[in-house]
């Protein structure tokens, strides 16, 4: 069998292959997650300024990275699905969105948990916080739009257009929010001036990032398989899956 980039563009082949990949993704996620959490919570030294509260960055920073990456991944697959009329890409884009929204929410939530002991407040309208919040709204808009449209093709294409408009606007929003922030109030917290990180902290953060990537793959593949079954429910191979073993 020759493998090419388009091999898994057929939903049936993707369904089978993704089913085989999912356990491996979970294994990688569990392995790196355990290693990352152990490094972050047991080995990494306590910060002399922030105490143990800083340890939430091992979840917070990778989650924030994932929230931005997954938006790009979603927009990429949505655009491919729209331009090349590839159904599988569109389904994949749709499967990415909830995971991206979840990581955005985790980034905001853990940021608030970190902010309370460190800054003394759950929330400040800092440029990063505000743009992350708007990112959550963009995810929400994408999910709401694709869910509101019944026709899967129109839902996929409309979602793709919205995701692309979002990608173009994200830098504009980010810089405008940054400027707004410096205009309205002197920046009381400077994230950029944090002390240099110890090597163990960086290791823990990278391990957690790998864990989150693997987790994303596992969840997105699982969700994409469900979307495939839903949208291909009138094809023969899905009907054959639904039949009990041995019957015709």
């Amino acid at each position, binding site marked *: 069998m020759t493998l090419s980039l388009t091999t898994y563009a057929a939903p049936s082949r993707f369904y089978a292959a993704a089913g085989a990949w999912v356990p491996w993704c979970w294994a990688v996620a569990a392995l790196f997650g355990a290693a990352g959490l152990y490094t972050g919570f047991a080995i990494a030294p306590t910060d002399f300024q922030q105490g143990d509260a800083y340890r939430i960055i091992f979840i917070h920073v990778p989650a924030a990275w994932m929230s931005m990456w997954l938006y790009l991944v979603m927009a990429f697959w949505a655009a491919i699905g729209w331009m090349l009329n590839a159904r599988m890409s569109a389904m994949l884009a749709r499967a990415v969105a909830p995971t991206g929204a979840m990581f955005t929410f985790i980034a905001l939530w853990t940021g608030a948990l970190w902010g309370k002991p460190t800054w003394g407040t759950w929330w400040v309208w800092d440029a990063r916080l505000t743009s992350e919040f*708007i990112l959550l*709204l*963009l995810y*929400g*808009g994408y999910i*709401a*739009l694709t869910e*509101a*449209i019944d026709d899967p*093709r*129109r839902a996929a*294409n*409309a979602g793709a*257009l*919205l995701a*692309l*408009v*979002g990608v*173009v*606007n994200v830098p*504009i*929003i980010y810089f*405008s*929010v940054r*400027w*707004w922030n410096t*205009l*309205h109030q002197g920046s009381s917290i400077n994230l950029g001036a944090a002390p240099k990180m110890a090597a163990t902290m960086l290791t823990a953060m990278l391990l957690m990032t790998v864990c989150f990537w693997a987790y994303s793959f596992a969840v997105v593949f699982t969700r994409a398989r469900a979307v495939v079954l839903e949208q291909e429910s009138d094809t023969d191979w899905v009907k054959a899956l639904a039949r009990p073993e041995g019957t015709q």
Partner: protein
Amino acid sequence: MSSMILTVARRDLLLARRRRVEALLPLGFFVVAAGLFPIGVGPEPQTLRQIAPGVVWVCALLAAMLSVTQMFASDHQDGSLEQMLLSPQPLLLLVLGKVLAHWLASGLPLVLAAPLIGLLFGMHAPAIATLTATLLLGTPILSLLGAVGAALTLGLRSGAALVFLLVLPLTVPALIFGTGAVVAVDSGLSAQAHFSLLGALLILNGLGAPLAAAAALRISLD
């Protein structure tokens, strides 16, 4: 080319004039919503003056989103939108004409009403002038972005509510620079940079949004 835009705009304006009350609903919403703030926040003149630019801008955003779903909806219902899509004229011009009509019918009234709201909030004259000028530059951006949202949600049950969720996050830069200009003038600074950025946003959206809206119309009516 421009005759096509004008024809579409004139037709939409004519239709709006036949239903005058309906066309003025966004303006009514704008005045009511802005008028509720002093009652909710309290009549303290200092506070009101401080929140005025934000209140006027946010109410203008909401009012624009309220009316924007009507841009394509009635033409979609009676089928004339599909005929327009079939016509040999570029879809881009149709969208531009509709955006122009929407801005004239519901954006411009907001701009004209803004000084009045400014007076109600006790703003100073230079701040009121700046606020009106930013709205003059900003409301076309809202109509342009709104057109994309309206085209994407065409014919959906929850379309009117969806437009708010889809479009409002994208209007954040316009809101920031629009209110920023007023704040700058109020604190004795130049609003030049804000106006330049608002103008740049208008140009960017003027170039990009009609294309996106035309593509969205094709997707929705496929």
